[in-house]
């Protein structure tokens, strides 16, 4: 293992042109117990060069900064850690995240935050198709726009889009809330625009504050499930 300690007692630095993703993840998994309870442990990852599965399965209060672009599933199934990507992300960033936060400085490919159950995913650029697909409780804030089928079958949590949304937004949505500031190309099956009440403005304001995104909640519209498709009925077959 060649990971070097840097300034602080527990600070770690990995150069992925020198060490493998396996070495990075193994070290972060092995030291999870030691990293817990003493405040965030800074971790720097250099030269990710689009590699997949960087910083996946973390279970401790790490503060990981990745200096560059990453491939698929960066920060997948994250628990407790904060992962910052100073670049763009491939498919499935923060998939099935349980807690903690993932902050992407650039844009994200498809299925960002897929099935995430907790924590906060912030994408400062755009997110491609199916952002927040099957969301199960996490919150996703996209400073830019999202592609088609975003929020597909989203169950719980919130998807905030500060830009525009593509076709079939919120298709087959369950109880997740979707907020969009810009235009919506089209709504998916059973997704409808809903009244923006104070409780929603408060939730949105809090999410924007957590994401450190400067936007006025009053400029957003809210979308949710019409709940017409919660139980199959033959008379609704035409909307599928």
């Amino acid at each position, binding site marked *: 293992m060649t990971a070097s300690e840097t300034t602080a007692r527990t600070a770690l630095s990995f150069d992925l042109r020198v060490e493998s993703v396996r070495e990075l993840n193994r070290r972060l998994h092995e030291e999870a117990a030691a990293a817990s309870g003493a405040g965030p442990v800074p971790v720097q990852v250099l030269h990710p060069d689009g590699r997949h599965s960087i910083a996946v399965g973390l279970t401790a209060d790490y503060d990981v900064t990745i200096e560059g672009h990453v491939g698929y*599933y960066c920060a997948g199934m994250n628990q407790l850690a904060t992962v910052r990507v100073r670049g763009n992300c491939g*498919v499935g960033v923060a998939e099935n995240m349980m807690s903690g936060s993932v902050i992407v400085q650039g844009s994200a490919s498809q299925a960002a935050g897929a099935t995430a159950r907790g924590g906060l995913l912030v994408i400062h650029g755009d997110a491609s198709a199916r952002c927040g697909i099957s969301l199960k409780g996490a919150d996703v804030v996209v400073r830019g726009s999202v592609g088609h089928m975003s929020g597909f079958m989203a169950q719980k949590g919130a998807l905030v889009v500060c830009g525009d949304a593509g076709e079939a937004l919120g298709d087959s949505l369950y109880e997740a809330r979707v907020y969009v500031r810009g235009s919506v190309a089209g709504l998916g099956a059973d997704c409808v625009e809903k009244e923006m009440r104070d409780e929603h403005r408060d939730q949105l304001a809090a999410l924007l504050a957590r994401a450190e995104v400067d936007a006025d909640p009053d400029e957003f519209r809210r979308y949710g499930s019409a709940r017409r498709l919660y139980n199959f009925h033959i008379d609704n077959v035409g909307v599928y």
Partner: protein
Amino acid sequence: MAVDAPLGWHPGLRESATFDRNAIAEIQRAAREGMYDIRGFGAKRRVPHFDDLLFLGASVSRYPLEGYRERCATDVTIGTRFASEPIHLDIPITIAGMSFGALSGPAKEALGRGASEVGTSTTTGDGGMTPEEREHSTKLVYQLLPSRYGMNPDDLRRADAIEVVVGQGAKPGGGGMLLGHKISERVAEMRDLPPGIDQRSACRHPDWTGPDDLEIKIEELREITDWRIPIYVKVGASRTYYDVALAVKAGADAIVLDGMQGGTAATQEVFIEHVGIPILAAIPQAVESLVELDMHRKVQLIVSGGIRTGADVAKALALGADAVSIGVAALIALGDNAPEHAGGYAEIGSAAGFYDDWQAGRDPAGISTQEPELAARLDPVLGGRRLANYLRTLTLEAQTLARACGKSHVHNLEPEDLVALTIEAAAMARVPLAGTSWIPGVTAIS
């Protein structure tokens, strides 16, 4: 005899082979309800199956092993390709993935108890892992399904293997639906949805599409679990040759191949009976694919779909499988369709031996239900004992047949030990028609 009496045939009445009583009843039901039929169980139509194969017992040209004295081993290790901790099973019969939600808590516990008693594995299902299931299963395979209901990295790390479910034999290419009346508070909580609403299970995974993505997904799962536990890929039998090759290329430790007879808790009848191919036809395709890649016995092949007896087990192994998996048969062993519940079945318009409304949640045997008073009818200790008895019987039967063929391990059974009773079975299983050396599609008629 009255014409409308049950089975009220009399001379002059001719039933249509095309519009038989089942077809007529289904047309009438569809016209009445306006919706396709959803049910559990598996395919009920007759398809070429293991019954169409026979073993060639030893004689002069081969010598057998003594049935009650000479050893015939049954163990199998799964996950030897990449996992640092492969699973070692005492018998080559595993319990297939079935969800808590589709099944009651006592049923899941009983499956774990029975499997553990005989040293084999059981498998979670859609909806995640329950603490009871983990507690009572010494070897537990954790399914990663498209819905990701209940998916939790802590459970992933607690598992003994991961099974990435691409499809299942009852519905290759289809998703699923747990109907709202089976969604109890606990099931709803595990699945992050309100109680009482239909819970759809998607037909595709949310964060990968195709074999190249699957390879990256498997790598992620290995990274999260530190390359410790095996990763299976489960496919429904359809384009098996290619699916197996692609799963191997994607990095699977084991392939789970589910034939069209495989069970389901709730699927459209039209899907169950009309999509996929029989397991008999699928196994040779899978083995061919593995052999061509030099991966046979390196990537283990677990097959399922209509396994009922030790003969089925032995025949599947002889065709090249490393292990089999049972679902429907395991539930029957627990008490599903048992005559002791005849009154209960009659009350809901069914009968012991025919009950397949596993989607309805009114199971008198307490297995495919979330109703507490029904679920309480299943004693998980007794159910586990029955399952263990059944698994032991299957194993003994498979050993009996293997010894008769002179094999000291059930894995030494081979296609050369088999012949087929029908041309169709011979062509599918790629073994000779009995009494000939003809394998349709492989050898010329001599």
